[in-house]
């Protein structure tokens, strides 16, 4: 659903909503996976991101997102220098992901302490982004909501249990998508929430022995 404020916005540092603002949001989403500024980041640029990224400040914008700066933060201009001061060890590479990838796609692998995470995301234009893969699992995360992505064994009552954990924490579910490859195989869930789930929620989900993997992603766009 398109919002008026997606069209009259975002307020952002130029020059390109897809190459700068969208890139910054993908950096922010990657940062969220490790809950803070990563110590190291491998940023692999595909397609137009690789070809025209430098002139659009795509490099600065992704690093700015990893540092926690939002698309309207003028520090984006000097993000590379700030990253060096803050000890964020980043590396850019040009790559070719699959032919079906959107032209503005990046794979970001981040590490912070013991945690490592990888996302693949695309910048769709007008600052909108879509994360299509986290740690190798296919997802669809827009960053318009606080989001939980998880993989669980396909068993009866799993959705009820998970939604109960969220309800107990006073978190309202905006959208919930469940998919599985086959009956009895892994069930994949993407839950978009109106309120931010705390780390407690994530830990409670991870403590369920039938949940194989769970990640929390911050809301990075929208009102």
């Amino acid at each position: 659903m398109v919002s008026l404020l997606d069209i009259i916005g975002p307020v952002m540092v130029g020059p390109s909503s897809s190459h700068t603002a969208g890139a910054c949001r993908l950096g922010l989403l990657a940062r969220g996976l490790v809950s803070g500024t990563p110590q190291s980041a491998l940023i692999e640029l595909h397609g137009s991101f690789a070809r025209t990224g430098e002139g659009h400040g795509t490099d600065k914008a992704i690093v700015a997102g990893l540092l926690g700066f939002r698309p309207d933060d003028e520090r984006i201009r000097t993000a590379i220098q700030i990253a060096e001061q803050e000890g964020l060890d980043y590396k850019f590479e040009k790559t070719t992901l699959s032919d079906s990838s959107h032209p503005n796609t990046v794979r970001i692998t981040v590490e912070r302490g013991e945690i490592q995470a990888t996302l693949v995301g695309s910048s769709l234009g007008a600052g909108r982004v879509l994360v299509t893969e986290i740690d190798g699992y296919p997802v669809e995360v827009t960053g318009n909501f606080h989001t939980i992505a998880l993989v669980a064994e396909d068993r009866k009552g799993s959705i009820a249990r998970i939604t109960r954990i969220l309800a107990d924490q006073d978190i309202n579910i905006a959208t919930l998508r469940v998919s599985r490859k086959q009956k009895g195989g892994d069930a994949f869930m993407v839950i978009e929430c109106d309120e931010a789930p705390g780390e407690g929620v994530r830990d409670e989900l991870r403590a369920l022995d039938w949940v194989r993997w769970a990640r929390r992603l911050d809301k990075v766009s929208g009102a």
Partner: protein
Amino acid sequence: MYRSLLEAIRDAEKRGMSLSQVALDLESKDQGRSIDDIRASLARALVVMRGAIGDGMTGDLRSASGLVGGDAAKLRTGPDGPLANTPFRDILARALAVQEVNAAMGVIVAAPTAGGAGTLPAVLTGLAKARGLSDEKLVDALATAGLIGAVIAERASLSGAEGGCQAETGAGAAMAAGSATEMLGGTPSQAGHAVALTMQGMLGLVCDPLGGLVELPCVFRNATGAAIALAGIEMALAGITFAIPCDEVIDVMGEIGREMDVRYRETAGGGLAATPTGRKLAKERLYQIRRS
């Protein structure tokens, strides 16, 4: 939001409301936010738009490559042309100003996108200043512009990489034309004709920036987009109608974009980017950016 501008126009006529009112009403329902809250967000966007116009008018900014900057100031202080002392010339300057700020990594409102961010604020604030209209009216106009942009996003595209420049500055010009027509007292139906009259003049426009950078010709396309929007507004307010309905003109923009060769969709493979001078400048300037 509406997926059809004609549907929004019919809705507005039936309820005796403006397009801005039906847009705000539906946005409020869609997003669960109060109309006052949405208007406050649009008012903040207006502040940023004015800030960018002010910064760009100083003439001190240069883009990363140095290819663009300083031209908005020339329209303010340079020799007179046939449009001297008209809102038209002021609007051209405002459009250049926003895009010069954008190219210099300054703060702008991407409306609809960063590359097409100059036309809408230039036309709206320039006309509001010329007519002495309130900020209240400008906020209404931004809501109408958002509605038109949302319809274009749904039916066609707002991305130069997908649909060429017609999807960015073309959309910006159509949004400016429809919203300004209503702001100046036009009916919802006249606003729809302003959109159609403006978009028909932007159809087929390719996205061919030098080196793939949002600089040249993007800065100037926003000014010429504003000129076409002003033509659309003037014709619509005079009672001129366009025989092809606005939704269908938007649809055909999407169709042309899908058929457009990839060289003309932001890849710097064709158009001005691929001219001998375009290639030479891009090579020199990209080398300079890498060294800086």
